[in-house]
């Protein structure tokens, strides 16, 4: 008697102590393994073709350490491998987008990105976009420009 039971997924032979090992069981198992590997390989080969025409979002992240300068003579800049559609910059040491901690920008939008400050007020960041580089400044302070000396800021950008 050959194998008395089969595995749950691919029906490969399982032998009990009293079972005998038969060529037919081994050949059948090899045929099943061969078919499963072929199916897997065909699936992987078909992936690039299936992905053609699909739209993907590229996420780019990074940090910078503030330099303490601000205003039009002390602009910040970030350069990306590809042109993003949206960028968010935040104080990495606070880790969330609290008051005075972050602003976001839709790439190329003429409306200035806004940084919320105390008292429900906001300040405008003067932003410009050229190629894959974004520059910005704020006229009142390095912290409002997200450029406080020694503070680490993080950004996330989507392309």
């Amino acid at each position, binding site marked *: 008697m050959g194998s008395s039971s089969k595995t749950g997924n691919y029906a490969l032979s399982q032998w009990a102590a009293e079972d005998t090992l038969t060529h037919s069981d081994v050949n059948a198992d090899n045929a099943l393994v061969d078919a499963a590997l072929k199916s897997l390989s065909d699936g992987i080969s078909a992936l690039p073709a299936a992905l053609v025409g699909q739209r993907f979002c590229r996420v*780019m992240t*990074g*940090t910078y350490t503030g330099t303490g*300068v601000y205003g039009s003579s002390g602009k*910040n800049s*970030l*350069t990306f*491998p590809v042109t993003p559609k949206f960028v968010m910059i935040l104080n990495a040491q606070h880790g969330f987008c609290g008051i005075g901690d972050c602003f976001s920008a839709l790439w190329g939008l003429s409306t200035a990105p806004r940084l919320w400050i105390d008292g429900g007020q906001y300040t405008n960041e003067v932003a410009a976009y050229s190629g894959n580089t974004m520059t910005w400044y704020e006229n009142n302070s390095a912290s409002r420009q997200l450029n406080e*000396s*020694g503070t680490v800021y993080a950004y996330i950008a989507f392309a």
Partner: protein
Amino acid sequence: MLIVKLEPETNGARANQNLSDTLDILPEGWTAVPEGLEAAALAALPWLSLTAEEGAVTAVAENAQAKRAFEEAREKEAADGVQQ
């Protein structure tokens, strides 16, 4: 990939960007810090001084003088603010 601006800011600090990606083309006026020097550069930022040979960074160090000057100016500013 860590890139830094070749020209320091007016206060001696150096603009920088630490990317999770790599850039094929660096922005004009910026240079890449070699991987082996990144940790030292990150620890010194933004008060970073560079040694470069033929446009390539060969050494990094903290610009202690600029850092001290900035801190003293900030302390003075704070003291002046308290007095007023």
